[in-house]
């Protein structure tokens, strides 16, 4: 064993056994190293095998998985250990932090008890010592009031705090290696930055290696020492982070970087096609069906590995691909549209929303003492014809509620005027008609499509509501417009991918012939390449139909790519509203600056 590597994977493969002797290969000959005190980022889109790799390291793969190769932790090959010894490694030498901390913590056990359990299991210390260690750990991960918070249950913590608690638990026995599997997915930019700064500080203090699994490239550039890109279960490019971001060499890496939204960019590069089906992998290079540099030989030859400088790439054509110049820094303001030309479409005046706490039930209701919370206050906004208004803020800032108030889905005070008339002054029938002209696309595409309805019927529903007959042909046209094939008409939502589902949600919104579409985090649950294609589609549709958007997101990058005007929301109040270029170049409020800095906007 050499040098300072904590973890080394040599030719690790994972295959799943299915019935009738069928074997599905999922990971193919992964070689990967994590050095002491360093962070290696394992990057890839969903389905690339990232999580599988992390589960292979701690050997918690599904029962029917077959694992081969060597996994060296220091000088122990983990694959040769019996389960009994492997259990002693888990938690003691390898700490795990998972995605979605709310689900990953036991909801009915106090957080403190879950941390103490991890510590006592491997040290055999007394409960008293474990309590002291838990308090110490909470101090280290930056949770104030350690003593009281340790007695809380996971649901009483906020999202960021839960992830800190998860990290504290993983660190309980001071492991040599920390595996963090998408620890910040679902967290907003500011929380992401805090968690990653925390991980960086801790890995230096503990001198531990960190295997950081993510699909978020902007985070990788800022925090990782090494990068390892996976595609369809194979390594495509790996090496030092600096060299990788300076000159990505694999066509997939390049496409992935091109798909990350940047302000002022006219168009994102989407990757055409979809991930290959694991049961029918291409024989040669797995990326070849989607590759822009594809040649006939790529289809049948295992890709050659090309080492150059501090990065390696598995691509036969690596030498031919000249590193193209990529845009960097701030674009000039002329990229942005002027926002003052269109007529006012939607005017929001001193809008406020109160939330009555439902908990308390009969007793509180009888006593007339239900709590009321103001979640939006004094919002003034204007949306012009053909404009995209971006609403950005951290989780809990009230963004989604604002969207719902505009859609007339929650009671509010103040006024929302559509084409010059306030909704609360309209007659009932006019109100109903006008509401149809504001459509919505929600975050979770699959959850927002009725699983029992066929795609064709889902898209046709708004048409039927408007009293139109002969919808079939129109639905076909709508599917075509959002880039879907008409043969999807008779499918059910479970049979399609997240990106496709979101396109259907857009087609459904378009069917009502809206003037405005409220997009509530439309790409948050999608991979970056899918996101790029979807954002491009939205831009095209806006141009063709003269649509206006209200784009709600915590992703500053996506907002700044799409929006003409940005409104910054915090704790239910507007912090700042301004034209995108101006706001990005010279944020007025301290908070906006903070948010932009956390979003790594200018780094890639």
């Amino acid at each position: 064993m050499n040098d300072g590597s904590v973890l080394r994977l040599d030719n690790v493969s994972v295959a799943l056994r299915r019935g009738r002797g069928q074997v599905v290969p999922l990971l193919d000959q992964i070689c990967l190293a994590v050095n002491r005190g360093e962070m290696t980022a394992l990057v890839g889109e969903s389905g690339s095998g990232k999580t599988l790799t992390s589960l292979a390291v701690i050997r918690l793969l599904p029962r029917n998985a077959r694992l081969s190769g060597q996994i060296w932790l220091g000088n122990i090959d983990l694959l040769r250990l019996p389960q009994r010894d492997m259990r002693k490694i888990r938690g003691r030498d390898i700490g795990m932090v998972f995605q979605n901390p709310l689900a990953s913590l036991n909801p009915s056990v106090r957080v403190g008890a879950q941390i103490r359990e991890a510590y006592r299991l491997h040290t055999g210390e007394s409960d008293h010592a474990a309590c002291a260690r838990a308090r110490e750990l909470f101090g280290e991960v930056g949770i104030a009031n350690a003593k009281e918070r340790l007695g809380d249950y996971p649901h009483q913590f906020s999202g960021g705090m839960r992830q800190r608690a998860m990290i504290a638990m993983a660190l309980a026995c001071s492991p040599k290696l920390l595996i963090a599997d998408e620890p910040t997915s679902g967290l907003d930019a500011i929380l992401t930055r805090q968690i990653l700064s925390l991980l960086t500080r801790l890995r230096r203090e503990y001198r531990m290696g960190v295997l950081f699994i993510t699909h978020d490239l902007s985070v990788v550039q800022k925090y990782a020492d090494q990068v390892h890109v996976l595609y369809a279960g194979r390594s495509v490019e790996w090496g030092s982070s600096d060299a990788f971001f300076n000159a990505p060499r694999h066509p997939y890496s390049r496409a992935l970087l091109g798909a990350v939204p940047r302000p002022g960019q006219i168009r994102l590069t989407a990757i055409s096609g979809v991930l290959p089906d694991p049961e029918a992998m291409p024989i040669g290079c797995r990326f070849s069906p989607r590759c822009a540099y594809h040649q006939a030989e790529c289809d049948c030859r295992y890709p050659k590995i090309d080492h150059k400088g501090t990065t390696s790439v598995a691509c036969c054509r690596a030498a031919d691909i000249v590193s193209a110049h990529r845009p960097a820094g701030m674009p000039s303001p002329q990229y942005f549209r002027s926002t003052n030309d269109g007529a006012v479409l939607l005017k929001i005046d001193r809008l406020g929303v109160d939330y009555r706490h439902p908990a308390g039930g009969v007793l509180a209701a009888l006593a007339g003492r239900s709590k009321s919370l103001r979640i939006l206050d004094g919002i003034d906004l204007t949306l012009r014809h053909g404009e995209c208004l971006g609403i950005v803020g951290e989780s809990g800032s009230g963004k989604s509620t604002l969207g719902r108030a505009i859609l007339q889905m929650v009671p509010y005070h103040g006024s929302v005027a559509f084409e010059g008339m306030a909704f609360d002054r309209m007659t009932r029938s006019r109100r109903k008609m006008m509401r149809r002209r504001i459509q919505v696309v929600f975050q979770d595409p699959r959850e927002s499509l009725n699983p029992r309805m066929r795609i064709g019927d889902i898209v046709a529903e708004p048409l039927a509501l408007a009293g139109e007959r002969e919808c079939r042909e129109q639905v076909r046209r709508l599917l075509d417009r959002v880039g879907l094939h008409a043969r999807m008409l008779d499918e059910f939502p479970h049979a399609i991918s997240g990106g496709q589902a979101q396109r259907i949600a857009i087609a459904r919104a378009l069917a009502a012939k809206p003037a405005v579409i409220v997009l509530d985090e439309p790409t948050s649950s999608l991979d970056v390449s899918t996101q790029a294609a979807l954002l491009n589609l939205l831009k095209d549709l806006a141009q063709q139909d003269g649509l206006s958007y209200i784009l709600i997101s915590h992703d500053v990058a996506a907002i700044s790519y799409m929006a003409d005007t940005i409104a910054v929301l915090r704790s239910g109040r507007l912090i700042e509203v301004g034209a995108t270029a101006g706001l990005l170049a010279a944020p007025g409020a301290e908070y906006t600056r903070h948010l932009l800095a956390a979003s790594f906007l200018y780094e890639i």
Partner: protein
Amino acid sequence: MIRMILTRLVSSLLTLAILITIVFFMAHATPGGPAFSILGQKATPQAVEQLNQRLGLTAPLWRQYLMWFWHLAHGQLGYSYLLNRPVRQLVGDYMVNTLALYASAMLLSVILAIVIGLIQGTTWGRWPANLIRLLELCFYAMPTFFIGTIMILYFSVKWRVLPAGGISSVRISDPGLLDYVRHLVLPVVTVALLGTASLSYYFGASVHDELGKDYVRTALAKGLTFRAVLFRHVLRNALRPLVTMVGLAFPYIFTGSMMVETVFNYPGLGYLLWRSALSQDYPVISGVVLLIGFLTVLGNLFADIVNGLLDPRERYE
């Protein structure tokens, strides 16, 4: 936690008040009225009038309604003219028998359900779970009287190890405790088999569900053994649906009890209800229905409180 209990208590009381009201009006809406059942179908109108006066049935409805509450608050459930005993006394005796039968049957089926469900949940999709599922379906589909009759056939008639039923007196003290328990065994097992069949399947499914959750992976990644994860983390969360089921099962138990109590000639509430319904003995019917309602509400309250103890998210804080 205390706030949650108080809130649930208030809503339980409201439920009871609604139940009491419904029972009152139902008793009044029945044709014939109690006078006929007491005096017989050939009673003269004068005699009926006289009796109605004596029973307070000529007073305005609201007054009768208030009296009904007043009597209930003092524990008076009325008087059975047919059996010539106060309803409270009558119902009290039968209730002891019913509670002895169903409390022990429920306890037995919960214990069995947990053991079987754990096996089923951890082997989900493989043969032990599939075999258990098959047995559960069989027992679930079998009518109570069929199981009861088979039991009597073997244990009482062929092997003569246990009595076929017929506790001679309704009091615990009379036949002696051991004899009472011997009489209980067959009915308890019959009811418990049916209960186990449904409870164990629900519990097994919920163990299987919980095992697929992310916190299980976290616990395994800490280095816990599977057994420790199962008992320290999964069991508690998996028990919640079981507790709710037990709470909800209360009314079914009482309505289903008529069958078992008839087969085993067992003097319980179901038996009493059946007999009174045949003879239109309204005070007794009302009393039994109220009691069953009361026990059902109590069962649900109990389930809510236990769930609150098991799951912190259920307590409003």
